[in-house]
């Protein structure tokens, strides 16, 4: 990626802490490569097979996320997934086009989302104020994916393995245009627990 497009954080202009403490910590997940993968009609079996060969993973057939070798795939609808690459660059999608094109539509969406990783003891309590889904430990397990609504904004959440400290980690993706409104909602809901934001490691 050219330096010019290593854009400033979407969250550069918003306050980065609220309240006292670190009940909820939000980390910007910039630099993710994201693509929409939609199976072609009648090609699901072949796609699954090809995908397994190439990525060493089985495409989940529900709202689940699996990951291996820096690549994750999250089921978002019947026969549709988000393919997510860590620090993968733009060739992440283009490099796989030829591979999967016959079996699926693969559409670049790396810039369409703002993704935040949330961790801390109060992540669930905070999110409970925002999303109408059950985030209880046993109902939204590591690897679960949920698409839902957050104050009129469409959002996608997935739960990662818990942090070594035992705290839950949830990543939340929202359309880039909504990022600031979403951030404000999150920050306000977390203020009573103490909120801090950490820009992406890449600065």
């Amino acid at each position, binding site marked *: 990626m050219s330096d010019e*497009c290593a854009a400033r954080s979407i969250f550069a202009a918003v306050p980065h802490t609220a309240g006292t403490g670190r009940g909820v910590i939000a980390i910007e997940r910039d630099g993710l490569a994201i693509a929409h993968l939609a199976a072609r009609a009648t090609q699901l079996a072949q796609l699954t097979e090809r995908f397994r060969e190439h990525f060493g993973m089985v495409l989940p057939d529900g709202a689940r996320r699996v990951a291996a070798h820096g690549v994750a795939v999250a089921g978002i609808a019947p026969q549709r997934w988000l393919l997510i690459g860590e620090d993968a660059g733009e060739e992440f999608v283009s490099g796989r086009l030829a591979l999967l094109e016959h079996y699926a539509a693969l559409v670049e969406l790396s810039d369409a989302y703002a993704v935040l990783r949330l961790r801390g003891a109060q992540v669930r309590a905070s999110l409970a104020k925002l999303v109408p889904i059950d985030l209880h430990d046993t109902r939204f397990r590591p690897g679960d994916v949920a698409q839902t609504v957050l104050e009129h904004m469409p959002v996608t959440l997935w739960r990662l393995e818990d942090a070594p400290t035992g705290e839950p980690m949830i990543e939340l993706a929202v359309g880039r245009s*909504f990022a600031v409104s979403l951030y404000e909602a999150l920050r306000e809901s977390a203020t009573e627990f103490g909120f801090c934001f950490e820009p992406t490691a890449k600065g």
Partner: protein
Amino acid sequence: MSVNRLEGEGAIERERTLSFKFDGRRYSAHPGDTLASALLAAGVSLVGRSFKYHRPRGILTAGSEEPNALVELRSGARREPNTRATMIELFDGLQACSQNAWPSRAFDLGAVNSALSRLFVAGFYYKTFMWPAAWWEKVYEPAIRRVAGLGRASAESDPDCYEKVHAFCDVLVIGSGPAGLAAALTAARAGARIIVCEEDFLPGGRLNGDRHEIDGTPGSNWARTAVAELRALPQVQFMTRTTVFGAYDGETYGAIERVSDHLAVPLAHQPRQRFWKIVARRTVLASGALERTVVFGGNDRPGVMLAAAVRTYVNRFRVTPGRRVALFTTGDDGWKTAFDLLAAQVEVPLIIDARTQVSAALLQRARGHDVQVILGGQVLSTAGSRALRRIEVLDRGGRVRRVRVDALSVAGGWSPNIALATHLGMRPRWSETINAHLSADLPASLCVVGAAAGEFSLAGALRSGAAAGREAACSVGFAAPLPSWRTDDELIDSTPLWFVPGSRGKAFVDYQHDVTAEDVALAVREGYRSAEHLKRYTTLGMGTDQGKTVQLNGHALLAARTGREVAEVGTIAARPPYTPVAIGALAARERGRNFRPYRFTPSHRWAEARGAVFVDAGQWRRAQWFPLPGETDWRSTVAREVNTVRAAVGVCDVSTLGKIDVQGHDAASFLERIYANSVSTVPVGRVRYGLMLRADGMVLDDGTVARLAEGHYLLSTSTAHLGQVMRHLTYAQQVLWPQLDVQLTNVTEQWAQYAIAGPLARTLLEQVCADALALSNADLPHMACAPLRWLGQRARVFRISFCGELGYELAVPARCAEPTVRALMQAGESLGVTPYGTEALGVMRIEKGHVAGAEINGTTTAQDLGLGRLVSQRKEFIGRVLAGRAALSAPDRPSLVGLKPLDPQARLTAGAHLLGMGAPARLQNDQGFVSSSAFSPTLGRWIGLGFLSRARERLGERIRAYDPLRNLDVPVEVVQPVFYDPEGLRVKG
């Protein structure tokens, strides 16, 4: 001054004192008091005035069902009218005022209404105030409005915030009285995820108000231990000060937690109240029962109080409502009040039991205390001006005696509190056993226990609670042993006495709305005989208490007057909320600027830095124009932007337009069924204008269709219609033609897109991407598209133009938005480039006669829009058949025209109607309207687009644009809708 405070332990902290003010006077109380208990302790029995007759009123209950003791709490922006004194948890510095009284609650001039009460009977206003006709609104209604209403609202913005929380559980337990606690303990011990909601700030329900023993310990202690056990369990959420106000479909319950109402102001980062949306797999309703009053003369006098409330004040708050308290009861339960008062050293001169026979045990106990007992007696009336002084009692022998008392406790029997169970539409059933309604036809997920189920004994409450707790836990997969607790047996016999037939004076059926037994009789006389008609005619049960303590008495009176049984009268459906809920709490965060999210385009901050003025386009914020220093009038800014685009080049952020990626082997044939015009014939690398219809033949949206590869299209939609179009496409894909191979991806957020338009557009673009892309007419003609490398990224350029100049749209990944727009500005500096906003864009599209949202308004066909030629006659597509209906192609149906004021200086306004030149301004002569208008800097005059009947025949005709709302009436000429470059040569430049 605590004249009525009793000795001994209750649930108040005696060692701490709080100070508060009522009607400006200072009093003191203790933590654990409510405003009601504190006022009673201070000997204040007159709390406010009634709605219609301004009768003095006191405190009737100890709970949320209170009809009388309403006050304005707090002041300024935090003023809360109609707050029940019985629900106000006392805090230091609390201020409250009585309502509906002037100049003071003791000397209220409105009490003159009481003298006129012969006129102000139920429904009197329907029969009068009709003459002279004009006086209703000028005189009578304003006067009625002034005297009606209860407290005063603050007109200021509510300074506190509210929060919404989504909660999920296996078992929701509503109420923490003995039945609720038994259910919660049983289910929680089994391991189920539980939420317990208790309305009061002190859990325990009647265990706090009554003197019971469970397992040899006082009931209030048992409750405390049970709550501690529950609170210690991680899967239990125990919430006090939380009212479940409504039951909704899908096992969803609404609850309000009063987080900060017991504080002067909320703590930092805390809401005033929290609105819980609780989804429960099972629900145990343990909401207890509500004690009823008896309708007798003067039953509203301050000092008359429900018997169980008296017990609550005595036992929990250590307050007595008076020093000489009589009891009027219809069942065994009321006697407990007398004994509790006696135990607290309060004089009880008299027990009047409406029953002629009661158990020997009760009589013996009363005799032991030297209390006079009248069996088969009835209270006929009460006396006292602002407080109770005396009651008149009729005994079985027909003798009337007067007894001096300063308080009267009334036990009219209990009605199970089943409001929540009826919210889902179930009609309650009448029980002959308990003479009240019980819930019926409950859904499998809901179980009613304890007094709410008619189990009025403590043992019964515990037993039914535990059984329901176990059943609920089992049904969600937890094995629960059934606990049991030891309690005393109680007498629970009761015979209803709904009203005292020979009452003297006003006997109230609805305290808050001053509905009397006479009003019920009047309503019956006038034919308002169904329970609903009675309610509506007399306003019985329509107050803030929704008639919780009296409605059944009213129905019993109705039954008696119409010769029916109470059961035949039916019920009034309880509607949510169970108790009134702050509107702010239900809105939670969605107010002010948080009402809806903002959407920002990827280069929003650049535009902001550039001084753009923004406009709301749905949720989007779009740059409307970019004023330069010195430009004070927006019109001159817009004119400069338009002129620059027409003469040189401008750049506009069009990222908000919808972009949908369509792929698949059947993409082309799928889109053929969607668009009215042919799109399968678009060659790869080309773009076509496309028109989508709804099934009813009206235009849904327009946009471009770019073919990126054989089975790969990119559609654009208008900003406003993206959601609808996406829904429409997925509907077609999944519902109509699931067999087609089509993949849809909304890529709107992925791409930032900039229109670069003007005669120098190519020059500008060449300066920044000449090495990436050949831009000549031959290489990239009008309506072509091509990929390119841009700032090291994959980008796309479309040669399309909305404003009618040579134009391109450059699409870049969103993160490159700011570098892109900066690069364009920098490169264009020497060319005189300007950024332009939506306003200039709007002006230029009107100059070109392009239709937009004002024209594609859901009622226009392709033909109306002058786009009929686009509609294919050779294929099937959505909307084709119904677009052909007779009236939609009738010649007098208005269609698109251009409009030009004859006077070049004259302003043309959107919303003006079109009339024939000589025709009077009447609806019959209405021939259309102006849909869009603008001052065209290019033409130096106002122009507009509009819809006009028989448009085709009328080019050149002079008509009127009639806008009486703005006092405009402008002669205009009907012209072709394209004002600028009608041959369309400039886009091809």
